[in-house]
């Protein structure tokens, strides 16, 4: 565990809060992209020894999470002329507060879990939990399909951080998990968003209400 890892994770946590507090969709995408790049760097510095799988995972994260998916999403909002998130189900300030509480709770919960010697005192586990929580908040409280996809991306980032803790022990699982999840999340959801636009003329999931009791 290098000395750089913790500061990087602190920045990741700050980006989480920024994502919860912003109403501009483009800013949210940029935030998620920055998080992706940071995670790629994190993969390089997390363990003392640098192996091939570290480099592969880092490159994958920077290219996919940092560049490719944000670019796809950015193109989608340009085509769709989406600018702002409409009033979310939970307002921006309350969701920011809930996010802060969630981060604190993650720190508390993680401190109750025993850590392997390599991770003593690091932010890997609480950082992962807080990021997963942030992604979940974005997914459940935002109304635009695009912001929900950003939420999914952030949730995946949380899993990625947890995976980094296990990268030395089981590189294969981590790599496969990252690639496949992103593939499903972004490509399939991207395709659906496209269909949605044609079908409804909008990507506002509020319109998806014909199926209910």
């Amino acid at each position, binding site marked *: 565990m290098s000395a750089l890892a913790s500061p990087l994770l602190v920045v990741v946590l700050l980006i989480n809060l920024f994502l919860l507090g912003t109403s501009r969709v483009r800013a949210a995408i940029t935030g998620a992209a920055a998080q992706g790049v940071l995670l790629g760097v994190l993969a390089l510095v997390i363990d003392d020894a640098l192996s091939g799988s570290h480099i592969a995972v880092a490159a994958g994260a920077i290219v996919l999470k940092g560049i490719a998916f944000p670019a796809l999403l950015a193109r989608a909002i340009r085509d769709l002329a989406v600018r702002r998130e409409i009033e979310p189900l939970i307002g921006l300030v309350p969701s920011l507060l809930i996010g802060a509480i969630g981060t604190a709770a993650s720190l508390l919960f993680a401190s109750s*879990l025993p850590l392997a010697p390599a991770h003593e005192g690091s932010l890997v586990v609480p950082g992962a939990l807080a990021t997963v929580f942030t992604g979940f908040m974005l997914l459940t409280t935002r109304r635009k399909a695009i912001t929900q996809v950003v939420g*999914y991306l952030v949730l995946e980032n949380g*899993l990625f951080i947890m995976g980094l803790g296990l990268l030395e*022990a*089981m590189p294969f699982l981590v790599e496969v998990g990252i690639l*496949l999840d992103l593939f*499903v999340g972004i490509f399939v959801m991207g395709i659906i968003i496209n269909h949605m636009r044609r*079908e409804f003329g909008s990507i506002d999931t509020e319109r998806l209400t014909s199926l209910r*009791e």
Partner: protein
Amino acid sequence: MVLAALILVPLGLALVALLWPAARQRPWLLPLGGVAHLVLSIAAVAGRPAQLTPWLGLDPIARLLLVAVSVLFLSTSLYAPGYLALKPGRDQRVFTACLLALLGMISAILAAQHLGLMWVALEACTLTTAPLLYFHRNARSLEALWKYLLVGSVGIAIAFLGTLFLAYSALHAGLTPSLVLSDLVGDAPRLSRPWLHSGFVLLFIGYGTKMGLAPMHTWKPDAYGEASGLVGTLLAGGVSSAAFLAILRFHKILVAAGDGAFGRQIMLVAGLLSIAVAAAFMARLRDFKRLLAYSSVEHMGILVLGVGIGGSATLGAMLHLVNNALVKGVLFLAAGNIHRVYGSKRAAAPEGLTPMPHEGERGGAADGADPADRPPPSATSPALASSAPVSGLLRRLPWSGALFLLGVLAVTGSPPFGTFVSELTIVRGAFATGHGAAGIAFLALLFAVFVGMGSTVLAMVQGPAPSTLPAERRDTVLTIAPVVALLACVLGLGLYLPAGLQTAFAEAAAWLEGP
């Protein structure tokens, strides 16, 4: 070798389906795949093949489920060509290929002894299901698909987090982390408890989402309501059951660690909650396809409840796993027949009740927006006022109507069907193991479900049929015979359990509870 073939043969046929030029013969690849899969399954179960790799193998529960899923797929595959012949305008190439790929992926979940591989296979299941749900290409199926993917992807992500936690529990204990089930079971007593416990909770939530347990079931009514009968069959009987098996594999690790009580407690509560939520939503629900979805939530609840009670109820859960998978085929395929002929998913209001007006309107409007499930407008049915609610089934569609009625009797656990035996075993297990309160709650909820489903279904089968239905739409041999066969299986399991099957069920329960 056989196990690899179980996965690769359907995938190979899926590829053939994508490349096959002639639309007329393409759907017949499905029965071909179904027969091949059944033969391979029987070979795999009977032969107990030597393990080539620790990553693939069949545990006793997977053996049971493999044959059940295979029978289920074969039945739906015989139904498929007739169904697809009615939908000439749709993308049948992708539909056929995805059905076959789904079969391959379900087999992969069942045969995976590496928990990471199992996760990948379940994720791939989600992927292959997406085009199947969007087959009708209308706004409603798009909405269903969005919810299915969003909720399902979050579930699968949480399951991944749980898998990482499980790996961490080995890492923390200073063991070489391995996700091969037998390694984990062997090392279980030494795994780090806090990580194991929180990992199990995450895995239960994650895979429970794929199973459709309440409160993670929200995608289910939409997806099953919009899916065609054969897709609903494979989702409710195949994918949900496979997700249940995934949870059981983690439960097995908990049991081996000496913490089985922790998992059982969670399952007991989650099971009762799912049955209760389903029972509440099923009361007065007129949309019969959504009714089937809630019935699936209920039965997933019964499965985890059985394992949660433990003891002899575990055996009941194993019986129920197979019975439920087969009876789902009867219900979804028969419901598909009914939907196709009536063009409506709404049951008539039972006598003495006036339909809620907004509900009627919505059903009507929705059917109007759903041109997929009726033949192209022809001279015989210009405006097609067939959004009339379903009634008089026994007169208009005697075969499908009777099968649906019998299927509902079976799914509500009436004797002499196999589901009666399995639910009775669970109830007796509850009282025998000192879970009397849970047993009584279970019985009360079963009764509520019976009343809820019964009132809707009776309104469908009785009375006069709407006169507006075009006469040329009726049952055919291919849309009826597979359903009859499945119903016969459920009936057979209730009347007589051969010694070989008895051993198989007992082995499955013993594997789960044993060391």
